[in-house]
């Protein structure tokens, strides 16, 4: 975004029958940094034969060369509404609402006159259609406002001609432009007159922060009414002609493949079944209803070839991780030190909406609908799989029912495309929850070794060696070349390291500090989960901080405050200590915990109180995991400029629930090449009975002009605070997460057939 002086920016008016204005979506800083060739990758060898399978280079370049194709556009309609197709995925984080607020702000429009939809995959945007790394608001904050400001300027100019008054005398309010003499005209009536007959660049000024009337004030979500009435449409709710319910019979172990099927014809003859076909991931069935798909999947008799993690279990993976750990240093430090090794188990990033997609593949073209955070990579990979040119594949981004990292990948979209092509019909593909849990992506198991040396009142050094089952970052940063680079055996290590170092920081004055990441074992379906490396890395660090404080005879809060490097960090920490009444007297086996974390230009602190008394731990809940209860939580965040405080609060609440789950209850158990967990009654994400009855979110006032990242910020802080509180309540620092992983709290469901039958006793359980 070229800046012209402090507040002037360049935008565009495009040629169109109605007013369409635009701005460049400049590459984000993180994208350009990570796009550099990863260390250790031989130059010139990157475009291996694979690349031509994935992308027709010419195709991308042609699109990129169109003069105004890489712009984001705001459109003013004759009914007085303004629309914008956001090149990001809305998965619950509230970016359609915050984007509408930015447009409403610059155009002085009521929020309900702004319609924000999700853009189809647009390869010409290159890096700029990835939803991740808490980057949406950071990267779109200025461009969206510029496009809206250009629209404002054009509307005022058209009104000046219409009303015979100079622009400077006009007032735009609530979609109506008024002249001093009383004449007025609505922006809808001007939409055609303000339109451009040819594309041109114009410069505009943006509103100063002090003038904001919408941004920075709490607003409810623009899709809330649709959500509470059941009208919000997710991929599975779309009515695409002839896209019939489709499911896949999946292998009993991770990534197994079909050897043979004994009864294809028998299953094809089942009621409602239209098609059965062997595909790369299993045996696909298409039927009139998903109920019939479930029956058909369960009826299939399949012989399976081994998967990618055959024979592996928690213990063997842990052994592999330990063998891959980098040393903390050969000699023990000469000064006093604290040292520990932490273990973090596999976790599921399943959203409540399972992996799903609709695909309509024809001989010469394909159309896909799915919740996708990296739709460009999806489009190009699907085109490659179907052997179609990318321009023949249309990828629609649907509203997503949660993501938590899962929708960075497009496993269901790719699979749906393959199935649709194979059977020659449109399909509505849904992964059963058991598929989603057992074959879906996971947050990888990891260990973190930490050693901190101190002397007197000084921390001399801090070393952390994080060792993880490989995290698949194959979605790259939204663009297929980067995605390819991440798949190279050597380049991938450089890519992960780059991401690790870009996303981790040391907020404390701990002398010489170093953090290294080692990754090993690529046999699992992994992906980044909300916060990626931060929750585990920060949890380990904050527990060590508590240990240091204890060894050095200091209070955990005061220790952190004294060692934090900057004022914003200290301010959030002091805020939670004050609001949460840090240090108050509490009964035995209950305690407070406090933690700090900063990332993506934002700072956060969390104070929790936990109750580990037996009567609480063993409180009766039918078929539920109870355990220690977080009874109170206070979160303070400084994200710089807050666009929508109400949405930010919601994000922080969600982060807290994730943090509680990761410390106390939620993990996957790996045995003999598969995960035991097959549904929500096995995987213990935070439930109402684990929710803190007392919860306070504090958004720090900020003079900053720039928004920081917020979607993931609070997960690491919350996880760490709960772990610290647990350690203080029980007197023992926890070193393995979640703390209940050693107890299997359910009877594992069978792996053959791969999905359970639906119960039939629903009438007995109405209440």
């Amino acid at each position, binding site marked *: 975004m070229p800046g012209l002086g402090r507040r002037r920016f360049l935008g565009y008016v495009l040629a169109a029958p109605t007013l369409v204005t635009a701005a460049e979506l400049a590459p984000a800083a993180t994208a350009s940094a990570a796009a550099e060739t990863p260390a250790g990758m031989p130059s010139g060898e990157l475009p291996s034969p694979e690349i031509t399978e994935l992308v027709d280079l010419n195709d991308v370049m042609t699109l990129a060369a169109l003069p105004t194709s890489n712009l984001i556009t705001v459109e003013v309609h004759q009914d007085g509404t303004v629309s914008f197709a956001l090149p990001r995925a809305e998965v619950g984080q509230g970016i359609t609402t915050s984007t509408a607020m930015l447009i409403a702000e610059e155009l002085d429009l009521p929020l309900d006159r702004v319609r924000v939809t999700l853009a189809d995959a647009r390869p010409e945007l290159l890096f700029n259609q990835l939803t991740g790394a808490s980057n949406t608001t950071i990267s779109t904050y200025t461009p969206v406002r510029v496009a809206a400001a250009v629209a404002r300027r054009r509307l005022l100019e058209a009104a000046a001609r219409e009303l015979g008054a100079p622009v400077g005398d006009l007032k735009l309010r609530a979609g109506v432009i008024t002249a001093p003499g009383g004449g007025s005209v609505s922006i809808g009536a001007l939409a055609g007159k303000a339109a451009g007959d040819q594309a041109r660049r114009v410069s505009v000024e943006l509103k100063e922060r002090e003038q904001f009337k919408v941004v920075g004030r709490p607003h409810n979500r623009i899709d*809330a009414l649709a959500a*509470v009435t059941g009208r919000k449409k*997710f991929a599975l709710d779309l009515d695409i002609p002839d896209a019939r319910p489709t499911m896949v019979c999946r292998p009993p172990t991770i990534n197994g493949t079909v050897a043979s099927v004994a009864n294809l014809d028998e299953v094809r003859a089942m009621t*409602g079944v239209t098609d059965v076909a062997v595909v790369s991931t299993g045996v696909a069935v298409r039927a009139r209803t998903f109920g019939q798909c479930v029956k058909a999947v369960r009826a299939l008799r399949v012989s399976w070839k081994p998967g990618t993690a055959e024979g592996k279990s928690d213990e063997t993976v842990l052994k592999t991780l330990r063998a891959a750990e980098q040393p903390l240093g050969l000699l023990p430090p000469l000064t006093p030190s604290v040292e520990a090794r932490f273990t973090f188990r596999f976790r599921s990033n399943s959203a409540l909406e399972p992996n799903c997609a609709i695909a309509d593949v024809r001989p010469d073209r394909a159309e896909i609908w799915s919740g996708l955070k990296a739709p460009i990579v999806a489009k190009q990979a699907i085109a490659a799989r179907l052997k179609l040119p990318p321009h023949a594949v249309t990828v629609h981004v649907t509203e997503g029912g949660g993501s938590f990292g899962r929708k960075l990948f497009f496993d269901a979209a790719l699979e749906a495309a393959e199935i649709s092509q194979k059977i020659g019909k449109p399909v509505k593909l849904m992964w059963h929850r058991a598929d989603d849990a057992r074959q879906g992506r996971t947050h990888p198991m990891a260990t973190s070794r930490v050693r901190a040396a101190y002397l007197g009142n000084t921390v001399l050094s801090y070393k952390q060696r994080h060792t993880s089952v490989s995290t698949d970052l194959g979605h790259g940063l939204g663009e297929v070349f980067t995605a390819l680079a991440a798949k190279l055996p050597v380049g991938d290590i450089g890519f992960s390291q780059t991401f690790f170092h870009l996303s981790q920081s040391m907020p404390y004055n701990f002398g010489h500090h170093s953090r290294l990441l080692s990754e090993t074992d690529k046999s699992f379906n992994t992906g980044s989960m909300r916060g990626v490396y931060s929750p585990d890395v920060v949890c380990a660090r904050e527990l060590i901080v508590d240990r240091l404080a204890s060894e050095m005879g200091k209070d955990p809060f005061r220790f952190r405050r004294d060692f934090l490097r900057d004022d914003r960090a200290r301010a959030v920490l002091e805020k939670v200590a004050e609001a949460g009444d840090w240090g108050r007297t509490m009964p035995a086996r209950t305690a407070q915990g406090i933690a700090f974390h900063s990332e993506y230009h934002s700072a956060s602190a969390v104070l929790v109180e936990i109750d580990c008394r037996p009567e609480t731990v063993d409180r009766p809940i039918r078929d539920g995991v109870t355990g220690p209860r977080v009874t109170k939580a206070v979160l303070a965040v400084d994200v710089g400029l807050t666009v929508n405080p109400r949405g930010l609060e*919601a994000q922080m609440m969600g982060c807290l629930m994730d943090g509680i789950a990761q410390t106390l209850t939620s993990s996957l158990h790996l045995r003999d090449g598969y995960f035991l967990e097959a549904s929500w009654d096995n995987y213990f994400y935070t439930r109402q009975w684990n929710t803190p*009855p007392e919860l306070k979110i504090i958004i720090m006032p900020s003079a900053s002009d720039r928004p920081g990242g917020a979607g993931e910020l609070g997960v690491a802080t919350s996880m760490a605070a709960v772990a610290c509180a647990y350690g203080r309540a029980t007197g023992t620092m926890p070193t393995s997460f979640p703390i209940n992983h050693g107890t299997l709290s359910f009877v594992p469901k069978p792996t053959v057939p791969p999905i359970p039958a*639906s119960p*039939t006793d629903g009438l007995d359980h109405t209440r």
Partner: protein
Amino acid sequence: MPEHTFRLNGEQITVEADDDERLLWVLRDILGITGPKYGCGINVCKACTSHLNGKAANPCAIPVKELRPTDEVTTIEGLPATVGKDLHPMQQAWLDQDVAQCGYCQPGQIMTAVALVRRVAQEGRRITDADLDNIRNICRCGTYFRIREAIRAGAENM
């Protein structure tokens, strides 16, 4: 294919489906009623929660043949009409508290909340923390706290 007759959102309907087809798929795949969501198919996540004769019920676990012609099935789509308004007070409370994040589980959460408030009222008492703790609907976005506040607020207006 067998026919099944029951009441759905205030109307008598007849639908052709396998006897053991679960009501969830009759609603979603045959009738196009997509408010009730799939989240597990085994009655543990509660995303499909709807009402059967006013009580919370999970269509993923009800074979359609078990419904009688007089049985009234209410999905989120039919909830406002039960109070003769555009929005049920519980939906309004959900809006006031801005509960939804992705929104996938929220139709089920609201239907559970309405049934809970009715049951508690019939027992002649007010909603307690224990009542809220015992709600089984999963929200993977973690909106639990606002759900608790919305239920308390919505109950005041029911």
